[in-house]
């Protein structure tokens, strides 16, 4: 009889998102727990045998008690077995989120796999081999013991680990918590459920990252899913379905502007999703005239209200006051004199106050426009 389970990881409950101020930040925090509940509901719906959480369910070992409590509450819709593996964020230290959770009194269906011991709760159909992290950074491959781990005859061996598969992931200078890329084969695993990488990824034969179910960063990877896995028996190929559970879309837009701000506005308009579920990072580069800059800022103010959160980085956007801009200011008089001087400074790369001069020009330009309006 087949063994079906949900593979998920990297919930990172308790991640603060403090750089997103106010209600949107609070919303991002609470959404993560709602997404866990969504996973529980999905598990109940799909009638799986287990949900395997491959590490980093919590953002840190020092999250508040109420956060742990609310997370446990969110698991309730699924009464089957939950297996939690301590990851690098929530390592099974002497005192950890897990010891605290246990102290709160957990229901029987929740298994905290903080010891390298086989978990066998499915009448011999499957044996889960956990490789818990008991320090934040382990030097040795914690999955070594899988190779020799015993399991009943005919049982599907499922590995559960947290870390980076050696030599396979990009951007990983860190060599801690490494996992051999042939572990699945060596340990005769039907499936190796991994966590740590926030995108969904099959990284080696029978070796999968589920990714974070609720995206939490502007990275173009496949996050926002869980894996619904079916193992028909030892040796049979694994069947993996990706199920979207995430709520927020984290979008990063990088736009280079030349003179006008149209491209930036177009990029926002092209998001193609409910803007209220979008967390957008907009990085603008290039240069615009002062009048365009004014238009851009008005547009961004509008989008800020529309989107769940907009983080606009205009640091790379240079003002390039056009002759029209300046003529609009004044053709004569002391204002013109001041503007000319500021402009000269703004264009002098050696001037330490060049940036301030640019902003000063923008200010006077805006004052001028408002004066014209008012």
């Amino acid at each position, binding site marked *: 009889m087949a063994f079906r389970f949900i593979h998920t990881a990297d919930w990172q409950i308790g991640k603060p998102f403090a750089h997103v101020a106010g209600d949107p930040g609070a919303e991002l925090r609470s959404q993560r727990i709602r997404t866990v509940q969504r996973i529980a509901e999905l598990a109940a719906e799909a009638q799986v045998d287990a949900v395997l959480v491959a590490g980093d369910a919590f953002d840190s070992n020092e999250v508040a008690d109420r956060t742990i409590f609310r997370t446990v509450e969110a698991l309730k819709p699924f009464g089957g077995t939950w297996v939690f593996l301590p990851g690098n964020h929530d390592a099974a230290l002497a005192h950890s989120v897990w010891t605290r959770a246990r102290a709160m009194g957990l229901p029987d269906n929740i298994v905290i796999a903080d010891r390298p011991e086989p978990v066998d709760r499915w009448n011999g159909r499957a044996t889960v081999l956990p490789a818990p992290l008991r320090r934040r950074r382990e030097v040795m491959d914690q999955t070594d013991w899988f190779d020799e781990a015993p399991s009943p005859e005919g049982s599907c061996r499922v590995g559960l680990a947290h870390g980076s598969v050696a030599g396979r992931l990009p951007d990983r200078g860190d060599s801690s918590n490494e996992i051999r890329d042939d572990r699945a084969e060596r340990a005769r695993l039907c499936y190796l459920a991994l966590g740590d990488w926030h995108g969904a990824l099959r990284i080696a034969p029978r070796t999968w990252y589920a990714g974070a179910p609720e995206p939490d960063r502007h990275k173009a990877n496949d996050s926002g899913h869980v894996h619904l896995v079916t193992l028909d028996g030892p040796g049979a190929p694994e069947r993996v379905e990706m199920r979207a559970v995430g709520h927020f879309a984290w979008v990063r837009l990088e736009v280079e502007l030349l003179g006008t701000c149209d491209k930036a506005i177009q990029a926002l308009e092209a998001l193609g999703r409910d803007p209220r579920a979008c967390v957008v990072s907009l990085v603008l580069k290039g240069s615009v005239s002062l009048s365009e800059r004014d238009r851009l800022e008005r547009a961004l103010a509008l989008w800020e209200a529309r989107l769940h959160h907009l983080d606009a980085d205009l640091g790379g956007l240079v003002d390039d006051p056009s002759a029209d801009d300046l003529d609009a200011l004044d053709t004569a008089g002391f204002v013109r004199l*001041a503007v000319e001087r500021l402009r000269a400074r703004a264009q002098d790369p050696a001037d330490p106050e060049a940036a301030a001069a640019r902003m000063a020009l923008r200010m006077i330009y805006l004052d001028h426009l408002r004066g014209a309006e008012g």
Partner: protein
Amino acid sequence: MRLRRIEVRDFRKLQHLVVEGLGDGLNVVVGDNEAGKSTLLAALRAVLFERHRVGGRAAQGMLPFGQSVRPEIRLDFDLGGEAWRLRKAFVQKPEAELESPRGRWSGDEVEEKLAELLGFTPPGAGGSKPGEHQGAYGLLWVQQGTAHEALGVGAGREGIAAALETEVGQVLGGERGRALLTAAERRRADHWTKLDKPRGPWKELREEVEELEARQADLRRRWEAHDGKVSDLAARQEALARHEREDSLGQAQRDLAAARVAEGQAARLEQGLREAEGRRKLAAAARDAAEGRRAARAALVGRRDAAARALASAQEEAGALRGVLEAHDAAARGAAGRLAEARGARDRATERLAAGERALRRQEAREALGRLEAQLRGAEEAERRRRVALAGAAAVAITAAALKEVEALAQARDRTLARSQAASVRIDFAPDDGRAVTVDGRAQDAGAPVWLAADAEIMLEGFGRLRVRPGGGAGDLAREAEDAGRALAERLAALGVADPAEARAALQRRLACEGEAEAQARLVEALAPQGIEALQAAVAAQRSVLDEVGDGIGEADAAVVEAARADLHAAMGTVAGVEAEAKAAEAARVAADRDLATLEGRTAGLAREHEALGAELAEARAAVPDEALEAALGQAGAELLAAEAAEGAARAALEASDPEVVRLEMKRAERAEQAIRADIDRLGREKRDLEVELGALGREGVGEQLAEVEGLLELRRRQLGLRGQEAAASKLLHEALVAAQSESKDRWLGPVREKVRPYLRLLQPDTDVVLNETTLEIEGFRRDGREEAFHDLSIGAREQVAVVTRLALADILRGAGRSAAVILDDALVNTDEARLSRMHLVLHRAAENLQVLVLTCRERDFRQLGAPLVRIR
């Protein structure tokens, strides 16, 4: 604007005045003081700037004193090439009318139209004030007595500024420039205080960032502390697990049990040694006892033998001593016989001597008694005589003092008697035949004279009575003499003598008796120095001595006595010698006897001792024969040797078991067990404490808070960076604008200087006026490159400079199409003549383009001005 005709009716002191024919250029309106020049200026202001409906103080100010009339003013003027007629009536039925070729206005429209035409701001309510409401006219129309004061640009500033801008173009940036500067100032003020300190949201943001940094540091510290505690907990858990894994406590307990077994064995060996030692000590004691017993027996035998020897020796000595005693006895008896003989002889000699001596003493006693008795008799006789003498003396009462007193009294009587007689009447009688005479009844010896001192009656027999009455105090003197005689008689009676002579003889007798008594007393003393009684006692004593001696017999012969004494002496010598002999012999005998008695006692004691020792020895031997004692001693010695050997063996066994090692091992095992148990307890306790502590920390969610604060801090820092840039930019912008404006202002005031200069040149070459670029007020005056403050100039100079500046400003206004007439009401009263003529040139020059009205009371000053004169009166 050019004024043409002014008509004033019932305005203040002016009942009706018309000023006509005012020309384009210079006009002089002459009026004496009080003629109403200044009122004319006020009327002009009223018709142009006051609302016709104005009430209150402004309206009251228009009325002549104490009258209720209707002030009315008409003004004809040219403006913009057109002729305008204006009429206003105030207070009663106020009216306003304005006419031009292009239209006609009345009522409130007039005020609005005028404000528009002339560019001023009508007052909201109340009167119009030159500085606030009359625009440039406030500046250009100079009231009497104010010419030397500040310009009072006031509301004229806007007009002048506007005019200047039309002249110098956009130098100043115009309204927009000012608005931008204001905006920049506001922006700057949003970020900076006046002292260039951050303020507002920027400052708050900075503070928030600082606060967040502090919180972050605090949380990080707590987080790290938390982390440290987790590590501590892990270390404790690991240590506990190691104890368990290695069974360290079990091992220690096992070691301890083994050590305890070894310790038991060692203890047993030690006990064995102690017992062997005890046995050895007992054996030694037994052997010592056997030896003692044997020694005691030997000692007993020795003592008995010694006693036998001593007894024998004492018996022998006693025999010898008895012989000695007998010899001493015989000697003592012989000595006693000789002594008795010698004593008899001595006693006889003694008797003889005593008899001789008694005879001698009796004789002596008789002689002494005789002597004493004679002495006693003499003394007793002398004593008797002394007492007789004393009695004689005592019988006489008169003393030397009494005698002296008697003699004094006798002298006093004699003296008084003599005086009395001298004073008295002496009557000598010579009776015939002896006829009797009585005086005062007493018979009188007729042969003797009578001295009469007092009245007396003398009976002369045969004759009769004769009364004599003496005079001259004779009576008193006679009484005095009688008193003295009585006193003497009384004293003599008291002394028991008849007259003073007898008294003298008695005293002589008394003194003789006292001398006799004294002589007898000396005799008594010589005979009985110790007193008569002592002498009597001596006599009695001597008689008793004699009685004692008795009568006896024998001759009282001194030689016999002496011989007897010599015999006695010899006999006594003999007795003493024999007594010494006898005493020595007795002493020797007694000593020998005592020695013998002692020796015999000793002999008896020795005999008893010898007997007792023999019995004791026999008894002891009967109980334990000497041989048995010897055997017992031999056995005890053998047993002691055996016990010593056993003790040595036990000691060797104990030493072989190495008890020090056993003890040390025991101690080590105990300590190890205790230490491990304590370590486990401590680790367990610490582990629990840490778990509790971490549990508490966990509830706070330090890590979550830290992450939150860090995220917020990052956000705020970014915002602060932007704000900081804005702050820097706002400052830079403001500074740039201010600097540019300041430079431009300098250029801005250029036209004013340009306009002033030609006038000033007429007045005083190389001078310049310094204006404030904001208020346009005169700040100073520059002469030969040196600047003087306006208020430091003389009044004359000030009014000249002010007038010249006003003319220049009026030129500028005209240039901007806002031509205005200049009115100077006695504006140059402080100017000296030379300067005044210069000022005339100035006015002429100004009048080339401006209408200038000079109101003056000094016609003479302006007669030469070359301008039409209008007189008012």
